[in-house]
């Protein structure tokens, strides 16, 4: 295919790149105002979103599609080892990533207009998003890993971009070291797989041919493959913060600037999951050749073994994340731990490796993008209003800031999986999938559900602090917005969403709008998820059939 069509295929990515360059250019020209760079970023992301939607063939914009539908979800020609491949699930994940970037970019526009490094912030966001987009279309292991690097390196810098704050600098340092270590591990693993298969193409890897005739041709036990995949798990687990590869995440989310935390937790984290889809679904599904293991165990095939490993990781992750979140004093660390446990839920989808499970996991990712970035953005907003970092500092916010608190309560309830929120739907679908798979996966569902029940405890504790405790005298807050009874009303209403006019008292229009969008999405898709779920399920079906 000609270069032009290739470039056309990557229209959204190119847009992002252009946007990033434009931001840096504008910055170089001295137009440092956040309104300018911010709006550039937002517009770029929206355009990219538009084209991805078009590629997905959504009705109103389908005519803009750059990728002919015939190229999506089709098998690659035999013997070909494409670097990238378009799957509708991948495109869906691109939309998720773009949405995360969009929320953060929009919300950040209500930061001080003359703030230093705004351009750096937006440029890096766009670059990281570019990397995430590439992850979503990778069909070659090295391509994937490098794309992940394209995400990681800007993230390191994002954490540290203020350059003045010790905490964020320390966070960046930790992030960098652990990240580099896991990069090493992943590439090392990739090299083993290359050794075993002679290629790093994921379609080939998925076929499990090397397992079939043993590593390095000889037959017998494919040590290279097993070791390689183990190393890859260790490397990629760093991204989706599986326990025990999670330790960095808490400190980083805590130390990074709030908006960046939102981006990391809501956005970049998710590429790890899609990487898991790409790398491990293949063996899970196709590596069905049984052989003897050490200690004469077996014959057992590699797929089930991988499933058991992933299941164990999932359960450990969700449990440890929840338990650690129970007693957290700091709001951001609590959210960080909760996002770790959420990663555990998502991993269930990979471990089961059925289309339903994939649907559930993807929906969970989508829900998490909104809930978690939303939550962190609220934290940022609260910080802007003078609320301290500790949970205790939020005392009585429900009376001072009814609408903001309502939105936050809504996000927490959604994280806890309470009904009428998208979190409920995603958990419901995910765990239904686990039970639908039967076998020991039912126990994954039980573990997940009990964990979410446990999580209710700490979310409930935050709600208690916000609503039931009397306001602390300490933080001098601007006059409560909507002091009118009408506004003070819906404090407790789980189904109430902030609306534009109340973005007063130092909240900022952009931030308020973002939070409003998040809340609305959470409720709307919680009540009527069909439009999203239908195509997502189809996409997952195709993805499985493709066997990547």
């Amino acid at each position, binding site marked *: 295919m000609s270069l032009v069509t290739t470039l056309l295929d990557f229209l959204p990515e190119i847009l992002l790149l252009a946007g990033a360059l434009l931001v840096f250019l504008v910055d170089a020209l001295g137009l440092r105002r956040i309104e300018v760079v911010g709006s550039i970023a937002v517009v770029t992301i929206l355009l990219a979103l538009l084209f991805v939607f078009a590629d997905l063939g959504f009705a109103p914009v389908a005519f803009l599609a750059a990728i002919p539908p015939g190229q999506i979800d089709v098998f690659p020609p035999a013997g070909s080892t494409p670097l990238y491949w378009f799957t509708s699930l991948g495109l869906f994940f691109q939309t998720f990533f773009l949405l995360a970037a969009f929320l953060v970019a929009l919300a950040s526009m209500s930061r001080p207009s003359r703030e230093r490094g705004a351009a750096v912030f937006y440029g890096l966001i766009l670059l990281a998003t570019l990397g995430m987009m590439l992850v979503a279309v990778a069909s070659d292991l090295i391509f994937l890993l490098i794309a992940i690097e394209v995400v990681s390196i800007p993230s390191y810098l994002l954490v540290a971009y203020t350059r003045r704050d010790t905490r964020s600098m320390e966070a960046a340092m930790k992030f960098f070291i652990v990240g580099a270590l896991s990069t090493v591990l992943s590439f090392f693993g990739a090299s083993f797989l290359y050794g075993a298969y002679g290629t790093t193409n994921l379609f080939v890897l998925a076929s499990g041919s090397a397992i079939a005739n043993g590593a390095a041709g000889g037959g017998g036990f494919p040590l290279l493959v097993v070791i390689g995949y183990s190393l890859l798990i260790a490397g990629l687990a760093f991204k989706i913060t599986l326990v025990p590869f999670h330790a960095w995440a808490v400190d980083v989310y805590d130390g990074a600037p709030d908006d960046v935390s939102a981006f990391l937790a809501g956005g970049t984290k998710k590429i790890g999951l899609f990487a898991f889809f790409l790398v491990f679904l293949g063996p899970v599904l196709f590596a069905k050749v049984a052989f003897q293991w050490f200690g004469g165990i077996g014959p057992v095939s590699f797929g089930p073994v991988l499933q058991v490993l992933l299941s164990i990781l999932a359960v450990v992750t969700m449990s440890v994340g929840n338990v650690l979140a129970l007693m957290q004093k700091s709001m951001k660390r609590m959210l960080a731990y909760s996002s770790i446990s959420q990663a555990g839920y998502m991993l269930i989808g990979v471990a089961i490796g059925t*289309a339903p499970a994939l649907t559930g996991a993807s929906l969970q990712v989508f829900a998490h993008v909104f809930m978690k970035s939303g939550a962190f953005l609220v934290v940022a907003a609260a910080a802007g209003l003078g609320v301290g970092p500790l949970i205790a500092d939020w005392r009585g916010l429900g009376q001072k800031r009814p609408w903001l608190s309502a939105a936050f309560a809504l996000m927490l309830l959604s994280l806890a999986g309470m009904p009428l929120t998208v979190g409920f739907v995603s958990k*419901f679908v995910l765990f239904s999938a686990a039970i639908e798979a039967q076998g020991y996966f039912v126990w994954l569902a039980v573990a997940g559900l009990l964990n979410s029940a446990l999580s209710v405890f700490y979310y409930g504790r935050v*709600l208690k602090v916000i609503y039931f405790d009397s306001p602390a005298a300490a933080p001098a807050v601007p006059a409560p917005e909507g002091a009118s009874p009408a506004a003070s009303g819906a404090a407790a209403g789980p189904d109430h969403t902030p609306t534009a006019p109340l973005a007063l008292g130092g909240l900022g229009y952009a931030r308020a709008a973002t939070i409003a969008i998040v809340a609305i999405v959470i409720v709307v898709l919680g009540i009527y998820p069909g439009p999203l779920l239908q195509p997502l399920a189809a996409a997952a079906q195709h993805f499985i059939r493709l066997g990547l």
Partner: protein
Amino acid sequence: MSVPWISITLASLVVGTVATFLAGRSARWVALATSIVFLIEIGLMFWGYSWPGLLNGIPQFAYSETHAWISIGWLNINYTVGVDGISLVLILLTGILQIATVLYSWKEEKRPNAWFGLVLLTCLGCFGVFVALDILFFFLFWEAVLVPMFFIIGYWGGPNRRYAAIKFFVYTHVASVVMLVGLLALAFYSHAASLDFSSVYAAEPALAGVVPAFLFVALFFGFGVKFPIVPFHTWLPDAHVEAPTGGSVLLAGLLLKLGGYGLIRWGIEVIPNGFHTDQPILFVIAFVSIVWGSVLSLSQRDLKRMVAYSSINHMGIVLLAIALNSELGLVAALFLMFAHGIVSALLFMTAGSTHDIFRTRDIPSIGGAASVTPRLATAMMIGSLASLGLPALISFPAEFTALLATWQALAYWVLIPLIVLVVTAGFYIWMMQRLLFGPTKGIPNSVHDIASLEVVAMGILIAVTVLFGVLPNLLVHWIVMSPVGVWPL
């Protein structure tokens, strides 16, 4: 039925709730209007009700609607609602308690719009549970009830309200997730076409071996904690003691009924095989709950705590009647659920007013209340007598038939609940002797009898108590227009 009454009712409730939240100072009027409309709709539902009966073995529902909600091959979820006699009586209970609560807490000054909105939301959730005929929507409403109750207890509650609220929230949530696993496993192991009641019902016989028994246990745990059954009951006293009066009314009157309803609708109707296997467990737990609840009520000093434990006792009888798996038993169970809903609501209202008037609910430290607050005393006497099963009041027909059914099924085991009836009478009568009679003591200077609106609220409940106590057939007539009427299916 062509007219989608249920959706209309749901819609009106939602609109009313949202309006109440936004209404500010005038929230109480909106709430009242909503409750009245709700009652009217319920009346229409009763008026046009006729039970379609069984269609090739599957119980049908009146006013049923089905709209696809999610259909992705392996997971088909429809918005399916419908009512039959079983749900109708409980819906009636919901309507009555809703308006009674709104009237009782008319004077609520602390965030009135939030208060009334949450009250309506709770009733909305209960209504949803009673009409939902799909696993997801059942569970959705089931959970949706928790959130408003969490806020009601935690924000308007007593001194230890925060702990009680979170305990209630987490405890019941754990139970419901176990229930959810059971329901989903039921659907997926039996390869039901969708999560609808009817398709799950039709698919259930496909379950093999011990699976039904396990599923029933899972479901029963979920429903049982709501009941509540001993030993999973300890959330109840805390929640009741700390909850505001209106909260206690809804908690005892409605939330406890969810368990019973769920057990009938999704338990014994859908998984008869599992139920038959686990029947002995149910009997044991029922007897334990009956005895434990009654004996503990005897030792309570706090009025609300006493009523809470008596609820455990009564719901134990309900569980027993359900477990009997006989037509008479089910009628009795439903009647008793209705009766207990009304009576416990009345008792909690009196307990709340006692607290408002005497600044304490500690029974021994008050005395001779009858001479200073005759109206409160009258209400409390009627409530207590109704609760201990006095004839011509609502509980009597229920308990009488329940125990008769017990004799039919279990013969001399009936002596356990019978003897306990004496204890029940004992603690109520003793409470009245200490609290209402004897020389006055612990009476604050500025003592006033209950206000007129509270009288109205209690009056509604008392009227219902007497009406259905004197003419129980009014209720039974509707109950038997349901699978119960043709039991066993």
